[in-house]
């Protein structure tokens, strides 16, 4: 147990190092981005006293200090959530990023809540009935979903919904949005915290089509990974040995074989989760939702470097966190990793 704790600690400290690396890279990016950062920070002034203003901002930002002090200050600022000001929206980058993150996570987490169990079920069924019609259907579907472009599926779904005269727009009805207190930024959670079932149901209903779309890729990925890994795991020596000890096949799969699938699954999901955060941008856009992807696209169009870098740093951190969680799951499940 102590050992397990030690390895988790080790993994987390490694992640912190990676995040520090990301921060340093972000800082370098700020500097290779076009334009003097002080100039952008004070809002690209042009008046007669602009030069003075820029000089003042340079001093404020510490640009006149040696590089390592700048870096130290940047890291300090980063951890106190002072990520600079968005050029386009004039607001602190951290505020915009956190807001977008909450909206995106609402969508992605829900998508995974649906995609994971279904994907695992599909994958298990397919690998146990290999080459059957069901397997071929599941696998074919999964391959199709995993490889077809998301915006295309999104467009088709929207068309379909419009044909059914269902128009979905935004994350929650405006009347609900303004009548509940915001705690987390996720309307689904906030409505529950407010004890408002009506708002909750509205938010969930509105979330259903985009969540369905967002879950297609993780579902397909999960199915394929589970099918593949399980098939591989089923051929391992220990499965036959357990059967030889008289244990039933179903029991062996449930209790032993699936444990071998989880670490692989966790690893892949760790990556695909972070990927989804950006990938759902199309879906968010189509359904008029907020989110990191949508904000990022606006920031890119406006050459808003502080915001672009802030959002990317946030996604990178999310990526590291997701992978770290996956690794920890791996460590907990697979005792061999601990040695």
């Amino acid at each position, binding site marked *: 147990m102590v050992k397990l704790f030690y390895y988790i600690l*080790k993994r987390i*400290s*490694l992640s912190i*190092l990676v995040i520090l690396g990301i921060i340093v890279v972000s800082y370098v990016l700020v500097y290779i981005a076009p334009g003097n950062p002080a100039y952008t920070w004070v809002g690209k002034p042009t008046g007669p006293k602009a030069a003075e203003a820029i000089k003042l901002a340079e001093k404020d930002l510490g640009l006149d200090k040696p590089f390592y002090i700048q870096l130290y200050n940047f890291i300090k600022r980063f951890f106190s959530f002072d990520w600079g000001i968005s050029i386009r929206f004039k607001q602190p980058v951290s505020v915009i990023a956190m807001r977008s993150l909450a909206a995106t996570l609402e969508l992605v987490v829900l998508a995974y809540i649906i995609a994971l169990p279904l994907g695992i079920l599909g994958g298990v069924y397919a690998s146990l009935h290999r080459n059957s019609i069901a397997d071929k259907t599941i696998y074919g579907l999964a391959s199709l979903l995993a490889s077809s472009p998301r915006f295309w599926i999104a467009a088709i779904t929207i068309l379909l919904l419009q044909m059914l005269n269902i128009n979905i727009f935004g994350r929650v009805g405006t009347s609900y949005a303004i009548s509940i207190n915001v705690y987390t930024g996720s309307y689904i959670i906030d409505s529950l915290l407010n004890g408002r079932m009506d708002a909750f149901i509205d938010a969930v209903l509105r979330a259903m089509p985009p969540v369905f779309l967002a879950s297609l890729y993780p579902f397909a990925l999960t199915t394929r990974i589970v099918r593949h890994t399980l098939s591989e795991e089923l051929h391992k020596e220990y499965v036959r040995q357990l059967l030889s000890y008289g244990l039933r096949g179903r029991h062996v799969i449930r209790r032993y074989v699936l444990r071998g699938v989880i670490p692989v699954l966790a690893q892949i999901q760790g990556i695909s989760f972070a990927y989804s955060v950006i990938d759902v941008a199309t879906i968010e856009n189509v359904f008029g939702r907020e989110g990191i992807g949508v904000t990022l696209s606006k920031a890119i169009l406006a050459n808003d470097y502080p915001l672009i870098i802030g959002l990317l740093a946030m996604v990178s951190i999310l990526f590291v966190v997701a992978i770290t969680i996956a690794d920890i799951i791996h460590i907990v499940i697979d005792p061999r990793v601990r040695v």
Partner: protein
Amino acid sequence: MEGREIVRVEDLWVSYEESLFGFLGKTKHVVVKGVSFSVNRNESFGLIGASGSGKTTILKALLGLVKPFRGEIYIEGEKLYYDGKIKVDVLRKIGFVPQDPFSSVDPRMKIMDIIGEPLIIKGLSKRVVQQAVENVLELVRLDKQIANKYPHQLSGGMLQRVAIARALITKPRLMLLDEPTSHLDVVTQSEILALLKDLKEMFGYSYIMVSHDLNVVSYISNRIGVLLNGYLIEEGPTKNIVEKPLHPYTKILVESSKFKSVAEPMYSTIGCPINPICPWARDICKKHMPPPTALNGSIVRCWYYLDYTQR
């Protein structure tokens, strides 16, 4: 004496390092602990030990694949490591036959190219290389036409002969054999062993062979060293080891090869590794590893014999 000596290993210590991010919290696993031995020309030395005893690591150190943190290796009197760097021209005097013939060859290359590769790199002409390959194929008793085949067309035994041929083509002074028969069938194994023995007797090669099978090692070796947890606990002429083993662990090995032992050794990390099951174990055995003691032409590391000789 110096002239006859082809390799001398002096007080060799090798460790693997495991660390966090490559620099934090280094943990050192010492796998070879003060091993010394020497091999003369036309002599074959067998290293025997269980998995994890350090025998493969010693081979790696001899091949320049891991750097020892203490000790020296001399090949024909020349240091293999000079100022911590491997001397390549010394390394060229060594040939190597790997354990698994299948995974050690590139499946896309023809046998001709596999065997001739060291010469092709040197820039020799195609005709010379071809001649040389045919010569070594003759040595390992393979058909010339094999040169135009691909690895998957050959059996395990034939591939192992190819591996031997590849080692021979550079005309090494010393051949290192890493369990050369453990992946082969019994019949093929005996053929390869016979071939190796033949080559040694006809051309005067020196071998260092690593195996966990005492039968195999004793068949081919003049002298045998027994490794236990990184220590060379006994070393002597094959006859001594097989017929009059001194160290209790060697006795276990010898007896088990005759299907006599039931005890799996339990190792201790402090003192003599075998002390938990040793019939002669005393307090000192639980604390300190004994120094080497010469006895009856063998060298043994055991407190019992140290006392015995001093008495």
